[in-house]
């Protein structure tokens, strides 16, 4: 066997010429959005979906909770009902997030486990590093804050959550553009333990937004273009715009009922 041939093949598959799919910007309800992410993860693991980057907005606005969270402990369900805000449980860990239709953009990255470092924090560093590049393109100096945040001057502007299943990786996360922070804190129950440390500023002061940092509010498309460019750079790949396949849409439609079910929402 000639070793140089093996090296060439590897380069072609994983080198800078490698192509990932970029999906069109979508607007979805919470259950559909979560079902699409799971469908992409499952089909990527089966070799039926390419490595994919996508962005979407939530309609209606929604709160997503981490897979280990108790919905009743984290979300004021009465407030959610009052404002018509959906509540959904993710398949990823981490905390509760308010996805404001008018002020938040969510991304997800689906790829093979071999496309990211085996170490969990290093894989967050790679993907969040793509977001940091995206923020730089927008004109914001941001930095990765392990395990899963991107910050500007110590204030969180993006949070992510990752799962690894069946040989593939799904990482999704939030980009705070101009969310209604007041509503965010009305919806989310903030634990006293989380703010008990007197050296830690109130949660309200620990969050920032793209609008606040830039002094203007960029269009969702602009943020999506720069963030996807940053992610492509971080992975060293070329993005090719393409739509969801029929198989992906069908699987997502099947999986959607899990995310609408009371059983899944109240799991913890």
């Amino acid at each position, binding site marked *: 066997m000639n070793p140089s041939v093996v090296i060439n093949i590897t380069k072609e598959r994983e080198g800078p010429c490698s192509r990932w799919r970029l999906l069109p910007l979508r607007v979805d309800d919470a259950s559909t959005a979560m079902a699409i992410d799971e469908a992409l993860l499952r089909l990527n693991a089966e070799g039926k979906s390419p490595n994919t980057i996508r962005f979407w907005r939530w309609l209606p606005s929604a709160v997503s909770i*981490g*897979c*280990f*969270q*108790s919905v009743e*402990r984290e979300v004021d369900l009465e407030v959610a009902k009052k404002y018509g805000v959906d509540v959904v449980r993710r*398949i990823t*860990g*981490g*905390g*509760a997030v308010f996805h404001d239709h008018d002020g938040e953009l969510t991304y997800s990255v689906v790829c093979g486990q071999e496309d990211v470092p085996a170490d*969990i*924090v290093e894989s967050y560093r790679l993907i969040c590093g793509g977001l940091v590049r995206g923020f730089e393109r927008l004109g914001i100096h941001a930095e990765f804050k*392990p*395990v*899963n945040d991107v910050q500007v001057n110590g204030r969180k502007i993006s949070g992510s*959550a*990752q*799962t*690894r*299943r069946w040989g593939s990786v799904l990482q999704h996360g939030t980009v705070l553009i101009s969310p209604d922070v007041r509503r965010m804190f009305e919806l989310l129950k903030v*634990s*006293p*333990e*989380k703010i*008990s*440390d007197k050296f830690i500023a109130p949660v309200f002061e620990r969050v920032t937004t793209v609008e606040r940092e830039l002094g203007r509010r960029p269009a969702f498309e602009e943020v999506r273009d720069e963030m996807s460019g940053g992610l492509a750079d971080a992975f060293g790949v070329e993005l090719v715009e393409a739509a969801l396949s029929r198989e992906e849409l069908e699987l997502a439609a099947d999986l959607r009922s899990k995310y609408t079910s009371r059983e899944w929402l109240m799991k*913890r």
Partner: protein
Amino acid sequence: MEVIALGYAEFKAPKGLIKVEVELAGDKISRVSISGDFFMYPEEALERLEEELIGVRAERESLLAAVHRFYGSTSIRTPMVEPEHWVEAILRASGGSQ
């Protein structure tokens, strides 16, 4: 008949807030429910941790031994959450952190 006691507490690990609801029968854990915004890989493992804790005495050494058994059984990863942090949260919920 053994005295049944219920407890709840939270503990902030370096990454993640651990929330524990515990039911004690005498000095042993008869039921435990762990929630929070931490990460655990694989995710299904959290249920195994809860099972591992059933019947364990609610004191530091026994709990630590049980949590170490859990980590040792398969390759569990919990970034910036250590065995001691679960133990601290459970002890607080059991009213025995002093």
